[in-house]
């Protein structure tokens, strides 16, 4: 065993160990807990950076652990893995800072941060998984680790949301397990391979493969909130804001979308999947989800609910990009994995800030809030424009490649879907911005907390501003080396052009 083997494991351990230690900490060991959290997050970032650098130097990172004969846990750092793992590592650091600020003084913090770290551990595991079974293992761990976070507040609403979340995800997990095992009985391997590993499977099994595809997509679709499996997501917004950020941008929803990307690219392979005729329906499903999510978002007064439906819609961009079955759309889909994360986490941070600082939970309470909290709302504006797909925010880049990819693949209808979605996005985000910036603020906010001269606590303000800047940078500097777009291009090349 050398460093190349251990590095993926270390990346996982860098959040697992702090998490486990935090579980054991007494509630009042605030400093130690913060230190553990931050050290873990920074160490992870450094390790991921090391891995990125190493991979760009041509090193190969892989770790294997035999579960059963023929069934291995594999952690491997491929381009797609690295894209997701970098996203998670970066956003985890930001979210940790935010969560520390957000939960200051609230009860059960050891429990919260313990599960928080576990959640990220699972996400990183999902990212680095080198085969479907490893993916499944971490995917289920993710379900278990997020549940306590969703119900963290302990209210009746939280319990119900948690219950809904569980019903959906456990069902999804069961479908996934079924699909995975079935696939294994047909192929005898589950190793993620660029362009898939199914081309050897005989013609007579193609029908079974279609059903397996459906099972896998349904399993991942639950977390990716594909209509009609999205019901848990809007309910889960009762969770504290950092958790929402985690759910929507870093971990859960992303893991689902990432799973679909994996299934289409590395299990079935783009060519094989389109040969089976399954990508078309998937694209349609994604399209329906995009439109449906936006339509529902339009009518939500609760800010976080509106954002949640927006996630339903946006995450399907990724799936749409994958399902269009062309290299350029693939770039759009994959890059949106990162872009959506950056933008949506910004929005949720801001929503959390509004709730924490002024007690604002509803869109209708947001009049003039931009004057009270300009930095927060500036970040929010960036995120919102990104969601609409207006330049120069990152969402523009995603939409650009999606649209171009659709044209290239000769699927013009996708353009209409994209246009419709942008329109709807504008319809539910622009009124918020209008209210926040141009309406007169009310005489008193619902529940104002005093933060002195600053608009809110620094730990709450910094994260959204940073992520908003990242979203801007990802759009502005899309063609710079190491930008998400460049990585996505690399991945697309690997899937489509390499022999």
């Amino acid at each position, binding site marked *: 065993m050398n460093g190349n083997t251990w590095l993926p494991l270390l990346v996982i351990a860098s959040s697992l160990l702090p998490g486990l230690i935090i579980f054991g900490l007494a509630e009042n060991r605030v400093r130690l807990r913060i230190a553990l959290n931050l050290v873990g997050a920074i160490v992870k970032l450094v390790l991921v950076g090391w891995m990125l650098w190493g991979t760009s130097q041509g090193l190969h990172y892989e770790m294997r652990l035999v579960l059963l004969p023929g069934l291995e846990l594999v952690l491997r750092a491929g381009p797609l893995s690295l894209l997701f793992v970098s996203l998670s590592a970066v956003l985890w650091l930001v979210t940790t800072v935010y969560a520390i600020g957000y939960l200051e003084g609230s009860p059960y913090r050891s429990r919260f941060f313990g599960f928080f770290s576990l959640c990220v551990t699972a996400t990183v595991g999902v990212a680095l998984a080198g085969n479907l079974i490893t993916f499944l293992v971490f995917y289920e761990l993710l379900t278990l680790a997020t549940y306590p976070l969703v119900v963290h507040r302990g209210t009746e609403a939280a319990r119900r949301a948690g219950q809904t979340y569980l019903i959906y995800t456990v069902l999804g997990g069961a479908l996934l397990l079924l699909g995975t095992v079935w696939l294994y009985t047909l192929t005898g391997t589950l190793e993620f391979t660029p362009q898939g590993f199914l081309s050897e499977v005989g013609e007579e099994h193609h029908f079974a493969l279609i059903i397996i595809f459906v099972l896998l997509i349904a399993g991942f679709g639950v977390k990716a909130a594909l209509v009609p499996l999205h019901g848990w997501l809007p309910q889960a917004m009762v969770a504290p804001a950092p958790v929402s950020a985690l759910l929507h941008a870093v971990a859960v929803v992303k893991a689902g979308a990432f799973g679909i990307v994996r299934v289409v690219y590395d299990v079935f392979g783009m060519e094989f999947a389109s040969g089976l005729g399954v990508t078309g329906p998937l694209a349609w499903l994604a399209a329906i989800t995009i439109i449906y999510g936006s339509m529902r978002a339009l009518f939500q007064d609760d800010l976080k609910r509106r954002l949640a439906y927006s996630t339903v819609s946006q995450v399907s961009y990724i799936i749409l990009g994958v399902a269009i079955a062309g290299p350029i759309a693939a770039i759009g889909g994959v890059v949106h994995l990162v872009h959506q994360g950056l933008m949506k986490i910004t929005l949720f941070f801001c929503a959390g800030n509004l709730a924490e600082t002024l007690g604002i939970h509803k869109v209708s309470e947001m009049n003039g809030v931009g*004057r009270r909290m300009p930095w927060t709302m500036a970040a929010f504006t960036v995120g919102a424009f990104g969601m609409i797909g207006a330049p120069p925010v990152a969402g523009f880049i995603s939409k650009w490649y999606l649209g171009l990819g659709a044209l290239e693949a000769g699927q013009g209808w996708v353009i209409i879907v994209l246009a419709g979605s942008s329109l709807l996005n504008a319809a539910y985000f622009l009124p918020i911005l209008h209210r926040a910036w141009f309406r007169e603020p009310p005489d008193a906010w619902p529940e104002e907390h005093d933060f002195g001269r600053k608009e809110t606590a620094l730990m709450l303000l910094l994260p959204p501003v940073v992520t908003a800047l990242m979203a801007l940078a990802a759009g*502005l*500097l899309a*063609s710079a080396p190491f930008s998400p777009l460049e990585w996505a291009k690399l991945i697309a090349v690997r899937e489509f052009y390499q022999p």
Partner: protein
Amino acid sequence: MNVDIYAMLLLIVVAWPLLLAIPALHSRLPWPHHLAIMPAVVLMILPGEASLELPWLFFGTGFAIDGDNQWILGMSVAIWLMAATIAKNIKHDFATPFFLLTLAGNLGVILAADLVGFFVFSAFMGYGFYGLLIYKGDAEVWRAGRLYLIFLVLADLALFEALLLAAFTMQNLRFEEVRHVMAEGSSSQFYIWMVLIGFAFKTGIWPVHLWLSAAFRSVSQLTMLLLGGVPVTMGLFGVVRWLPIGEHVYYVLGTAIQMLGVVAMLYVVLRLLMPSPVKLLPAWASTAVSGLFIAALGTGLSHPVVWHQYEHLIYPFIAILGIFLAVFGFAIGRLPETRRSPALVASRAEAFNLWVERWIGTVRSWAKDRLLGFQSHQRASQRQVVKQYQRILNWQKPGGVGVGWSTRISLFVLLGLALAWLAG
């Protein structure tokens, strides 16, 4: 002059107002509005052409200045200097970021060397202008703002589709390439339509002019000035830049567009026969002008030869139109403020009519020369133009109230013209 520094100046012209848009920065500077325009002024004064490649920006874009957009730059600088002077006196410093944002977007649009850059900065400009449009906020303005926003989003969508088509057809999205390549492509008709629809929304061309008239109804002075100068002119500028005009004969399409322009002008004429609030006059003017413009474009599409003949005039024409609309808008916007006493409300329309007649006459005679030259082949529409102005004049009975403002406005017009020619 060092070429590199010149190229960098291009970047600074756009980046500087953007940077200043941060409240913490501009609130500490004196004269922030004027300061923000300064690089642009310098750029305009400097002779020669320059271009700057920015491969890391988006998918790679760039800025350039040449004889064409120097006209527009000149016009814009003039308008923005006026606007800055007005804005300086506005206590509402909340509008400043939007002012600067719109300014940056406007300069970016002018200097952009390719479609992507244009599109990106037009988004800055469009959304920033929304802030300027409604910052003074009453319900009426909000309604106009909402309309504006809807049209803006629709316009951006249409342009985005056009952009996608262009990107799908070709690698390099520079304007000169676009003009050649998009004329060839199989989807060029669709592209043209998307561009036309997009800019029609942005410019408020008839029949999608609703936001414009709503906006003029009740906005502030500053905005009245900018309304014609920024969204309308930039729309016209954009449509010229984006359309693959003069390359290919699009007879049917061109004729249809011509007809559209003519009908737009007719519409304005008919509309003016009805009683109409004075503040809407700039809106009608703008609609009429853009109708005229569209008609000209249609001619260009159906008769490329004609286009080549007059191509060099189109940018100065736009610049002059911009100045005209801006000043017209500003003047009308100024009116209610000076005449706020109740007794004069009734005579407001008459008071206004007088100045309109005075300076319209000046502009008209000048414009006639220009336009008639341009439109010589297009008798019908030319007649319409003449008719239109005649209508306006007939409708406006001279009143007896004199105002000192006319001189100032005239001065501004002269200044704008001078600057525009300087730039050329």
